[in-house]
Structures are given as C-alpha cells and as structure tokens.
C-alpha cells in the first residue's frame, strides 16, 4: 500500500546489536527467504525507532507508539468446512483470523510536530514469549514490532518488523525407546524399534527394523517424516499434512530374520518442533512413517508420532 500512497516519513525500526544478533532464515509465503532476528523467551526486545522526514516536510502527529505483538494467524476461512480439499482454494480468500496472545505497547512520543529526523529508544523488558514462531501452511505464529505514527486527518503510518522466536526445551530425562510390532496376517510381520520417541531438531533417529515374516515381494522401504498441522479444536478441526522427508532405508526384499538399520539425521531438514494446542488454536506434530512398497507399488505403512523439541 505504501507504493501507492507514498508515506511522508520513513520509519526504521532497529534492534540493538542487530548485526551481531543471530538471524534465522525463513521462507515467506512467496517462497523467498528472509532473515529474521532471533529472540528467546524472556529476552528483552530493545532498540530504537528512527523517523526520517521525506522532502523535508513537516509532520504533525498525534503520538508515536511501538507495539510488540505475538499473534496467531489462521488462514483458514472459518466459513468453509473442514475439508482438506478446500484448503488449497481457500488460501486465496483467506480471512485472516488473528488472535493476539501477546500485546505490549510503549509510547515513544507525545503528539508533536516533527521537523527533523528523530530517534526513539524502546525496550520491552524480559518479554515472555510463550510460543515459538511458526510459519505453516494455514497458520502462522508471528512476533512483530509494530511502530505506529498517529495522524490527525490521514491514516496512521505503520511500520512492522518481524522477530523470530525460538523456544528451547530441555531434553527429557530418560529417553525411552519405541518398539512396535506390526504386520498383516500371514503376510508380513515386522517389528521396529526407534531409540527414542523424543528428538531434538538436531538429533538423529536411530532404529532398526526386524523382519519376522515376509511374504510380500518388497521392493523397497522408506522412512518419511510427515508434518501435520491442525487448526482449531475437534470437532471443528482442520488438518493438513505435508511430507517433509522421504528417505529410503532399504533396497530389495529382505528375508526372515533380517534386521535393517535406520539412521536419519534430522539436522539437515527444516523441521518444526512439536506444538501442541498452541493457545488452543493449532498444533503441529511430526510423524515418522515407515512405508513398504511392494513390487506392484502397493504401499504399506505405519505411522508413529515423534516428539520434536528444540534443544
């Protein structure tokens, strides 16, 4: 919008030590990568706003304030039913349904007239950032600074700056291994074992698959990581799954008694920690799916959830 209505001023929000601060590369909606400064829970957000005048005009304003907002944006149109097939079409006609779970405000300036560029310092002390930032298919969780210059007659001038937040968790005390026993009667019987059910994002999934009975003509076996994003609460829940990784772990047909090792490094993939009922709005969960493909390209799979966390 700023293209059409050229704003008379230039607002720059700068964070302290922004250059040296760690940044996170995130893909935006258009698929472009952008770099966002990274914050953690309880960390102060501190910086300064610089307002420069254009064309040396004066500017009268009714006050300048800066907000730190944490919000959950669900793109799902609330009117549409929970049909996954609609979700793609509905993307275009998103009704942004925002839910702010964090709202902090700081006045930077009382109403005044700006004659020359001005710096305003701001600081939100020890902000609790309960949730991690997230950009999903149908839901975003964003933190952003919003600087607003109020004007009398015309619309307010707004400048936003997005932050990225990581929430670190401590590793669970005792990693418990996951064992599962699945099969098709008289056809296939496998047992698989993952070293644990909770993984940090830089972790590696290690496991082993035992073939106890093989009567299928298996061609290969792969492991996939599926991210499921669900919005809302049942019964009005809306879910969307996305296969993030496909990883072949076996080539050819095993015989009874074979044990196939699994090792999948997670660090290289763009994974999201498990979010459960974030602000009762949405969840993001990751499933590990073991898929067997037989010679007729039939797929047999078993999914199990893994909990991902940021260490």
């Amino acid at each position, binding site marked *: 919008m700023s293209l059409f209505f050229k704003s008379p001023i230039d607002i720059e929000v700068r964070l302290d030590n922004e250059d040296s601060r760690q940044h996170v590369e995130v893909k935006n909606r258009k698929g472009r990568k952008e770099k966002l400064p990274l914050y953690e829970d309880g960390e102060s957000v501190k910086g300064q706003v610089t307002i420069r005048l254009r064309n040396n005009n004066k500017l009268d304003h009714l006050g300048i304030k800066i907000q730190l907002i944490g919000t959950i944006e669900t793109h799902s149109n609330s009117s549409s039913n929970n049909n996954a097939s609609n979700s793609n079409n509905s993307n275009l006609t998103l009704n942004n349904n925002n839910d702010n779970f964090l709202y902090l405000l700081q006045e930077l300036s009382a109403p005044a007239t700006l004659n020359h560029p001005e710096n305003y310092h701001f600081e939100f002390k020890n902000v609790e950032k309960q949730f991690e930032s997230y950009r999903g298919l149908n839901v975003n969780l964003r933190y952003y600074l919003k600087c607003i210059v109020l004007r009398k007659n015309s619309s307010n001038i707004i400048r936003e700056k997005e932050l990225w937040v990581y929430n670190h968790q401590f590793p669970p005390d005792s990693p418990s291994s996951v064992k599962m026993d699945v099969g098709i009667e008289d056809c296939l019987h496998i047992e698989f074992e993952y070293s644990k059910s909770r993984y940090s994002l830089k972790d590696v999934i290690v496991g082993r698959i035992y073939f106890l009975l093989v009567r299928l003509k298996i061609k290969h076996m792969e492991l996939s990581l599926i991210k499921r994003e669900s919005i809302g609460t049942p019964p009005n829940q809306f879910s969307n799954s996305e296969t993030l990784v496909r990883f072949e772990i*076996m*080539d050819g047909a095993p015989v009874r008694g074979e044990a196939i090792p699994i090792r999948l490094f997670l660090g290289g993939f763009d994974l999201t920690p498990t979010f459960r009922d974030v602000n009762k709005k949405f969840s993001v969960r990751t499933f590990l799916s073991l898929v067997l493909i037989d010679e007729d390209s039939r797929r047999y799979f078993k999914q199990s959830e893994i909990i991902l966390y940021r260490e």
Partner: protein
Amino acid sequence: MLNDSLTIIKQQTLLMKKCLDSKGKLMDALKHASTFLSELRTSALTPKHYYELYIVIYDALEYLSNYLKENHPNNHLSDLYELVQYAGNIVPRLYLMITVGTVYMSILNAPIKEIMKDMIEMCRGVQHPIRGLFLRYYLSQKTKDLLPDKSKVSENTSLEDSTEFIITNFIEMNKLWVRLQHQGHSRERQKRTKERQELQILVGSNLVRLSQLDGIDKFYYKNVILPRILEQIIQCRDLIAQEYLLDVVIQVFPDEFHLFTLDMLLKATLNLIPQVSLKKISISLMDRLANFIHREDGKLKNKESQKENGNETKTEIETKTEIETITENQNQNQNQKEKEKEKEEKIDNNQVDATEKEKEKENQFDLFQKFYSYIQKLDELRPDLSIDDITALLEKLCKLSLTYYPKNYKNIDTLLLHTLKRLDEFKDTREASSPITEQNLKNILLIPVDFVSIFEVHEQKSINLDLLLNLKNYTKLLESQSPKVQSFISQQFLDKILDYKMQLQNEDIVNCIFNLLSSIVNSNLSRNKKSKKSSSTSNSLLFALINQEKVAKILHLIYNKDPIENSKLLLVASKYLSKGGSKIKYTYSSLIFNFLKIIRRKITKYEKRINDYKREIKNIFKGLTKYINELYSFGSLELALKLLISVSNISNEIMMNEFTNEFFIKIFSIYEELINSKQQYQIITELISVLILYYKNFYVESKNDYDKENYDNLITKTVLYSVKLLKKPDQCRAVYFASHLWFQPNDFSSKSSKEKERGKEKESDSVNTENGENTENGANVGSVGSASITNNKRVMECLQKSLRISDSCIESSVSIELFIEILNQCIYYYIHGNLISAKYINDLIELIKNNLENVDIDELPVNHFKRTLNYISRQKLIDERFELIRY
C-alpha cells in the same frame, strides 16, 4: 539400457570433476556423484552389465576419494560422512558413505573401528542381491588396505576388528548371493545359476581378503575364523555356495592352517547338503596338502642354502620361536597335550635346523588316518554317494598317502581293500561300470605303477617295486576289473618297465610283474573270442601283438649273474606264460632264446667243467622240449620247428648228441604235419644245412657208433623228405642240397683245428654259392678217411635223382634253370673231389645248350648259364683239370 546408463555416468562424472576442480563446489560435486550413483539402482541389467557400470563408477569414485584425501583438512571428513547420509536413496547414499568413510579411515587418528562398524552395519539396508553384492564388494575393495592388522595396528583397533569386519561382510554377501537363486521365475533357474556363478568371485574375495591379513596365526584361524566361515557355509544350504566357498577356503588359506584344522574342515563337509559333490572338495583339499609337501621341500632347500650363507636363518628361527611362545601364551586354554607338543616343537626348533622337517611331519599327526576315517564316515553317512565319487576320493587319498608317507605301504593296501569292498557293494549297479568309475579305478591302479621308480644303490641302478610288492590287495583289485581295464593297467606297467630297462633280478619281482601282466599274458579263450568278434579291427589285433611283443621284451630283462638263478627266474616266468594259451607263440620264442642264452653263458663260464653242469642243462632241455610241445599243441608248427632247430644247434654245440638226435626226431615228427609246401621246402633246406654242421660232432668227435648210426638215419630221413616234397623244383633243389650230406670235403680228424674252422665255413658257403674254392683241391678229396661219411655213390644218386626230377618238369624254362643249378653243384663236386667226371659235366652242358636252343626262354637262366661257363673258363687258368671240360 547399459549404454544409456554409461552415458549418464560419464556426463555426471565430468560434471563432478569440474565441480571438484572449482572451489567451494563440493556439495554440487557430491550431488553429481549421487546422480551417477543412482544408475546403480537399476534392476534391469544382468550381473555382467551391472559390473561394467560398477567399474566405471568405481573409477569415478576413486577420483572423488583422492580429492577428499588431498583436501581433507579443509573439509571435515566426519561432517562430510554425516552429510552424505542425507542422500535420499540408499544405494547412492551407501556408496558415498563408503567413499567418504574410507578416506576418513585413511587419515591419522581417525576412529577407524567405529567407521568400520558403521559402514558394515549400514550396508544391511541393501537387500537386493546384485546391488547388495556389489555394494559390499565396493566396501571390501575400498577398505582393503585400511583394515588394521599386525602391520598397522593402532591403540584402539585390533586385528579382531578386521576379521570381524570381513567375516560379517562375507556372511552377508553369501546370504545375498544364495538368495539370488530363489528370486524370480522358477523357469529361469538355469539362468540364475549362471548369473550366480558370474558373481561368485565377489563373495570369495572376502575370504581372499581375510587370508591376506597380516598376523593371523593358526590358533586364531582355528578358534575364530574358520568356525564362523564354516557355520555360514553349512547354514546357507546352497549347492553352488557350499561347493565354491569350501574350495576357496581350501585354496586361499595356508596349508599349515589346513593341517591344523583338518578335523574341523572334514567334519564340516559332512554337514553339507547332499547334492554337494564332496568329492570335489575333498579332492581339492587333498591335492592341496599333497602339493604342500613339495612346496615345503622347496622352501626347506632354500633355507638350507641360506644357512650355508650365514646365520641369517638362525635368527629367523629364533624369532619364529618367539612368536610361537607368544601364541602359546595366548592359547592357554588349549589342552595340555597340544602344549606339550608345542614345547617339543620348540625344542626341536632350537636344536637343529634339519629336524624341522621331521617336526612338521610329526605335527601332521596321522594325516592318512584322518582322511581314511573320513571316507569311512562318508560311507556311513552318505550312502547315496556314487561309486565314482568314492573311487575318485580313494584315488586321491592314495596319492596323498604316498606323498606324506612314501614308505607306508600299509596305508595303500588298506585303501585298496576298501576300494574292493566298496566295489563289491556296487557290483551290480550301472554306476560300477560307468566310464568315470572305470577311469578312477584305472588311476588307483596306476598309482603303484607310477610309483615304480629307479633308485640307485651303490651306484647301481635298480628298480623299486617295493610298493607293488607290499600290496596284498592290489592283484585282487586288479582282477576284479574288466579285462579292458586290466589290460590297460598291464600295458602301462609294461611300458614303465620297458622304459626303465632294468634287470629283473629276483623271484619276487618276477612274480610280481607277471601277476600284474596276467591280463595280457593269460589267455581267456572265451573272452578273447568275444572281443575278437566285437573288435576284430586290425587295430586291436595289432595292439594285442604289440603287447605280446612287449612281454617278450620283458623276458629279456630277466637277468641274474648266476645262470642257475637266472634259469630259475625264467622258469617262474614260464609258469605265467604257460597260462597264455595260444599267446605263447609270441612269447615262447623269447623265453626259449633266453634259456639258450643261459646255456651259452654257462658254457663260456664253466667251459672246463661243463660236465658238472650237464645235468642242469639237461633239465633245461627237457623244459624247452615241453615248451616247444606246447607251441606245437597250439599249432605253431613252423615256429616250433625253427625253435627246435635253434635248440639243437646249442645241444650240438655242447656235444649232447643224444639230445640233438631227440630234437631232430621231434623235428621230423612235426615236419610231417606241415602242409604248406613252401614251408616244407624251407625247413628241409634248413635241416640240411644244420645237419651238415652236426656232422663233426656225430661222426668225427663222437666215439659212439650209436651216434653215427643216428646221424645216418637223420640224413637218410632228410633225403626222403626231400624227395617227397610237393613241387618238382623244390624236390629237385632239396635233393641236390641233400647230396652234400654225404659229401664232407674235409677230414676233420686229420686237419688242424684252425683249418677245421675254415672248412666249416666253406661247407656252409658251398651249399648256396658257386664260389670257386680254389684253396681246396683234389688232394683233399683223396685224403677222405675211413671215418668220413663221404659216400660218392649216394652223392651221385642224389644228383641223378635231381636231374631226373628237373627233366620231368613240364615247364622247360624251369627245368633249364634247374639243370643249370645242378651244373653248378657238379662243378663244386668236380673241384672238391673226383666223383664227377669231366664227361658228366660236358654232357650236362650239352644238355642245357640243346634245351636252350629248343626253347625260347627269358634271359634269367641264360645269364645264369653264361656266368657258369665264364666261371669254368676262369677256373681253367688255375686248375688244369678244367681243361677237360669243353663247351
């Protein structure tokens, strides 16, 4: 298909190299590598074509690993090792992992053990047989020089890690390889079997690798390596795998190991699936061990020569002892016995170098017993084993035993007995007579034959038949064989003996040899007839003749310095020969001549005491008569006659006139049965010439009137036979020859011995030639004494008779020829005496001339006549009596 893949691989390899050469593009390079590696995911290629892909890719990856190695401080290899594991497809992922992993292993302070474990574990992900085999082969190739062993062991790695690594790889590869057999359609079974054989070397390479590890001793091999390998081989229950892998095991590991683990190895073979040819395996094992001895000998020689050079060897042995001590300590749980043995070895080792060989032999415990009990067990456990397999095994065992225990004939004998027993069990089956079995048996039987060798004792060469002599069961086994086999063996044996041309000097040897040759020597009339009918080709007949000829040659090899002994040996031989039936006609002549030779030797040796030996000689003569009778009874009349003549020659030579007479009577009796007139004529002429020789002994030397009478009888009889000859010309010639019987130009009693000799020569000459005997003159004739047999009347009668006979010939050319010949005879008599008048000769010449004029005949008689006349005219120059002859 293949070409497409190859093109892609080449392109991607190029791209990869480009990326590697430009900085900071390692990731891209890896991506290209991953792309070309994806070509190895194909299932559409045969093993051969897949191998072609593999080769190209191997080279490409080699380039990559070289790059990684050179740049390794820049690229953290452990990170890289993780990085390549993000590849989505397992085959490219693992190839990359191995490539990076092996580079990682090669650098200093790398966690070699962990990398090895990880790679071998992750390779399990490829369960497709061909892809898996090649992947694991790649693993094995790349790790080849990196595995820790004695020469490159570090703190946290050990030889065990390497063996574990290789054995695991081996087991997995074998599983994949075996699985290949069971995939796909069952009608492509054949094709798969072939494919598997193409792939076998990949599996076997692991065992080769294992054997190349430095620092494996036999204890470690026995306790760790072999049990696992064998277990896998047994468990896979696959024909190709079991046969191939056991063979590889046998071939790649050192002989010492095999000796040390023989029990295990043999026991393992008993647990293989029944289709496996145990024969092949055991044979290759036995061959290997048999060759081992030869190799060891070579080594030992080298060592000895080294020792001469200095005491290098000594230190070598010392270090060896040290090593042994170490291993000994390591294997404390080995039982006490073995320890003791070890100690003994040690002591031996320290003592003398030369005992080393003996030590090794001791060390081999009883190799033969092991194998023998193994074969016995086989018989028990695998009754389905075919007889040709059994025989093949036994054959090899024989050879093995001979290499290890050349002096232990009992072993061989046991085996032969065993063979005999087993053969008995299979007697009526078809297999028992299969060509393979036959061949095997032949080989078994040939072993002792081949073992016959020459050795030197006191600088004298002698034949070594010890082995054969000590085998009690050999002849039994030989006799149980088909005549074809028997004769084959006998032939080989014959050739062998003849090759060596060794004298057979004692009875045992002669007995032994003739036992072996019995199939050739003996006649089996019924069989002979059959075989003659079935194979009456001239070839086989010729063959049989050649064999007989060889037997005859053998007879000549029988020799002992002592003639009496020698004749005993010949007697032994003759016993065997006499079983030959009609075959004796080929061998007896040689036998008889050998006897004659002995008599001759006796004569020369005991010339002065000849009478002492007459009895023995008499015995020999009696024997000879018997042989000749046998020949006669088989219808070889002519041969019998000729031999008799030869024998009578000898008996004459030693003045045993009664025998000579006997022989002649025998001659006459056989002669009468001759049918062929040509033979008759030949024999008659021979008789005449021989009789002339005997004249001296019967008439001149003998004091016995009886002899003279006998002689008269003999010559009268001869003349009678002459007259009875069938054809006129033969009659005529025989008669004029016979005339000489009554004409002895020399008086032996009055001449010196020297002249006697000369006279003798001339006598024999004069029968057939017309040489002028100008040294002999009329004086000779005149001095014919009372003892002389010369009877002019008889001579004349004979000449007249022959004239009459020739005259009665219908063909004039023949009769003219005969006339001329008679003329020649007359001239001879004219020269040597006065019983022929010049007129007689003139008349004869006249007669011939007349006949020549009347008949138009060819040149031959004419020339003969001319030559005769020429002779007369020349004779005139030296002998005035010839003046009386006119023509």
